[in-house]
């Protein structure tokens, strides 16, 4: 990345994967609200299995992650979000 190509270095193939910078969706757009009543908006913070995604994957900031988890848990209580998604269902 920052290190320029050195001729003396043996030519090992550079790691190809490229990281898209993660950012907090809710910090970026203040009009978005975290609402347990809108499960559509929370879907992307949940895995296919229905588990809450960790911050290191979703990229949200600590403050909003806290709000997201609470919202997801509220949604689960009132059957808007799943607790578990069964395999093969």
């Amino acid at each position, binding site marked *: 990345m920052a290190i320029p190509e050195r001729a003396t270095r043996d030519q090992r193939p550079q790691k190809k994967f490229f990281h898209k910078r993660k950012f907090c969706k809710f910090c970026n757009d*203040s*009009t978005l609200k975290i609402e*347990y*009543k809108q*499960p559509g908006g929370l879907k992307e913070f949940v895995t296919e299995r229905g588990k809450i995604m960790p911050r290191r994957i979703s990229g949200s900031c600590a403050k909003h992650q806290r709000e997201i988890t609470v919202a997801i848990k*509220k*949604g*689960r*209580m*009132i*059957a*808007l*979000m*799943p*607790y*578990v998604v069964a395999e093969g269902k």
Partner: protein
Amino acid sequence: MRRYETIFITYADLPEEDINGLVARYSAIITDRQGIVVKIDKWGKRKLAYEINKQPRGFYVLIDFVGTAAIVTELERNLRISDQILKYMTVKILDTVNLQDLEEEMNPRVVEEKVEPASVPDQETAAIPDNAEAPLATGEGEAPAPGSESEEEVE
């Protein structure tokens, strides 16, 4: 007085009158105890994320109200007893309720629709329902603020 919202789920195949009856019964519990029902929102039939009482779908009703803890316990007691309720949940929205703000929130809905181009009264009504937007609305011109807010509501 605090602001709460209660969501309850009934059977999806319940006839319309029964649902109206339920809503009337529960809002009566609130109003009998000096509570104020701000809004009743029938979301309609929805697929449940998981089965409750073997039901794959349910009818959601949201009651937004202002009241005391006693009202909440009484309301939840009634919801628990009823056979027609699959599930319910009460969430506290605000700790303190300003009755003036509440009145303006409940009434100007009719006014807002009629007098949208009017600048000065609109600014006030637009600023009240959403506290986070208030500094923005006052800082900018009067006309764009209500317009942008109504767009958000549509989304």
